[in-house]
């Protein structure tokens, strides 16, 4: 526990001293919300749905960069080799970046909620808040695993562009920036097959108080298995190359 918390603290300190990392992940979702969503969010229900979408966008950015770019640069670092010689079990090492990602996701979400409450009529019922957290986590898991796929399969230089190539189109096609019904027609056909759309569906039900359908959760579970298997393969491949 103690070494894990020490790694968590070190991760936070390092990232907080890298404004180029945390400013975009804190500010981008809120900025996008204020530019693209707030002007059209005149009714409480529409505004709340958009808030839900941009919360997904915020969490997506944190997990893609934490696990994608973070792992890719770890793999190239000599410090990572030193860390491997410390008496720390590999699973304990994994816990620290998960806690770090949750922390940054919570901060990015908080900034966004404050901005949305101040600029739009978005308001969530207490029950919606309670359902929102598990809905956000349900999608965070498969997309963190997608981040791990990037982290283990891309070189450190390629990781940032690859993460962006996934993160931005997935956000758009998933209907996170503009609601799915306003997407261009051909994107509407692709949208249901993206993990971000299914994640959005789970979150939108939580936000507007409708019953959860099984479908988005089945999709998210499927993406968890798919990305999990690829990430595991990438992990073993990397471990074999560096530590086999």
């Amino acid at each position, binding site marked *: 526990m103690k070494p894990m918390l020490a790694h968590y603290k070190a991760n936070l300190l390092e990232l907080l001293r890298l404004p180029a990392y945390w400013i975009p992940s804190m500010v981008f979702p809120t900025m996008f919300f204020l530019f693209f969503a707030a002007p059209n969010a005149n009714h409480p229900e529409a505004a709340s749905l958009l808030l839900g979408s941009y919360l997904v966008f915020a969490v997506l950015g944190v997990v893609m960069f934490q696990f994608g770019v973070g792992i890719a640069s770890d793999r190239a670092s*000599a410090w990572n080799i*030193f860390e*491997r*010689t*410390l008496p720390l079990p590999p699973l304990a090492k994994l816990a620290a970046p998960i806690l770090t990602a949750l922390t940054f996701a919570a901060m990015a979400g908080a900034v966004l909620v404050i901005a949305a409450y101040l600029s739009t009529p978005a308001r969530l019922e207490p029950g919606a808040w309670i359902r929102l957290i598990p809905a956000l986590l349900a999608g965070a898991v498969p997309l963190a695993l997608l981040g791990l796929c990037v982290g283990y399969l891309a070189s450190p230089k390629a990781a940032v562009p690859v993460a962006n190539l996934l993160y931005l189109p997935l956000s758009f096609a998933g209907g996170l920036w503009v609601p799915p019904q306003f997407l261009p027609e051909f994107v509407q056909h692709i949208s249901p097959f993206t993990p971000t759309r299914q994640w959005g569906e789970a979150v939108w039900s939580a936000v507007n108080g409708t019953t959860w359908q099984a479908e988005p959760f089945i999709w998210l579970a499927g993406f968890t298995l798919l990305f999990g298997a690829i990430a595991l393969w990438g992990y073993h491949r990397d471990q074999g190359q560096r*530590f086999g």
Partner: protein
Amino acid sequence: MTRVAKVSPSRGASLSEVAALHQVSKRFGQTQALDRVSLSVERGELLALLGPNGAGKSTAIRLLSGLRRPDTGTVRLFGQNPQHASARVHLGVTPQETGLPDGLRVGEVVQLVRAHYPDPAGAGELLERFDLANLERRQCGGLSGGQRRRLAVALAFVGNPRLVILDEPTTGLDVEARRALWAAVKYYQTQGGTALLTTHYLEEAEALASRVVVINGGRIRAEGTVAEIKARVGLRQVRFQASAVPQIEGVSRLERNNGSFVLYTPNSDAVVRQLVEEQVNFSDLEVKAVSLEEAFVALTAE
């Protein structure tokens, strides 16, 4: 008089054995990095692994620190598999390549590493020992190359280890820093510590090691005290022009290219004396020290 029966330790491991390779082989693609190597590090000793680049030194060290798995053979660290985290509680390592979290301060890095050990050294005392005390609040990204290396070596000592493994610890350090670091390693040994280090420098082995193992081409080529090894690989080069050279004692290797000769020898004085006594008609005589690398090439390129 009763005779004391000699007790032989089980499984061939001596009681004072801290870490060991038993018949270990490791291959990377086409390269046989280690070929059935057995090596034991005994408590309290300072063992230097000597050899040219690509000899297999670093592979041996990575296996003992749990960074790699052997293809065949067994690796033991305090009687356990070094790949298990619990085996590494009494181990400190300085890898060959220095890597530090650039965004963290020196003091923060020491605290991070301290959190892994049950009985770590005091941070202030440790930084003092490695001449880093005034840098505690400096971010690692702002350290000089020498300071980074000193910190990387200091981190091996954070956990009050029983064994430290130092992979080319003084590479990139100036003479003064190198000597200060040697003093720190010696002090650690007087406190009962055991160390395994690799080096390119015979001088470094001379300053520190109680035993030397020479490794090349993935195999152990020689083993002994520094003096013994030095007699074998501490060569000098005697160069001159001459038409012919008679049989001369103490020459490890002779290279001849038209009229120029290169003689490798542990004792250049004796060789020159013989050249004079044998009335060899030499010119352009030159005597110079041979680096460890050149000595290995001379000794192994038969």
